[in-house]
């Protein structure tokens, strides 16, 4: 990206909820993409549709009270969620309404590590992580 475009994006982006390019988020997605290629030779890019299926579930294998990511993050990712055990409010997951989503690599990885086993009974693959973020960038 060249300078004028970057500047324009910055100006438009301030205060706007556009799912605009965000370098930190792009870097996180790129890292999962490299990892997905290593894990799976046949990997050919992340998919919004697969991300949506992961998000909505229902899945089996994890805790029975959390059959989907949507159980805590709500079925509408633009709406605030709620932790199903504690009642704690959770900010929306959709990047369009919450532009700070997926911008801190350590936080993102920490939550995948905690949340995937609760829902799926196993860790998420790099492909699933990228699908999940891609779905929420497009919502």
């Amino acid at each position, binding site marked *: 990206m060249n300078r004028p475009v970057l500047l324009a994006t910055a100006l438009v982006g301030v205060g706007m909820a556009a799912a605009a390019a965000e370098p930190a988020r792009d870097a996180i997605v790129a890292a999962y993409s490299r990892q997905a290629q290593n894990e799976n030779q046949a990997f050919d890019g992340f998919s919004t549709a697969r991300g949506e299926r992961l998000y909505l579930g229902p899945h089996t294998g994890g805790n029975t009270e959390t059959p989907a990511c949507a159980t805590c993050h709500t079925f509408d990712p633009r709406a605030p969620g709620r932790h199903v*055990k504690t009642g704690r409010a959770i900010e929306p997951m959709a990047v369009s309404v919450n532009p700070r989503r997926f911008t801190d690599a350590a936080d993102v990885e920490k939550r995948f*590590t905690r949340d995937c086993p609760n829902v799926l009974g196993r860790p998420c693959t790099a492909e699933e992580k990228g699908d999940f973020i891609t779905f929420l960038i497009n919502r």
Partner: protein
Amino acid sequence: MRRWLVALIITAGGAAGAAASGLERVPAIAHPATAKECGECHMAFQPALLPAGSWLRIMDGLADHFGEDASLPADLTASIRAYLAANAGRSGDPKITRITEQSWFAKEHRFRSAVWQRPEIKAKSNCLACHPRAEQGNYDDD
């Protein structure tokens, strides 16, 4: 809505009265790592709400934290552990890790079980459902 809820609970439950818990105003959390890492799944509870022994038990068992994996890198765990222990409360049973199972909590919260089962409350530990200023350490709602 919340005020109304608390009012309802007080009238329905027979006032908890001014039985001094000494905890109606506790210092807010002044340690960013604790506020961030312990405030994700529930409100970050102020250190004064539990004695040091309870905090140490909690911080030594984060991998199985009330059925959740809340583990953190060792340096973060150590810094949060030190903050909570240094600012812990003086009363309470250090063998009990739940605030909601300490005897003062039971005395201040004698509600019918139907109250606890209300969907907007969900868990006894959801202080914010009834104490709107709980995150500032303010449990004095009169």
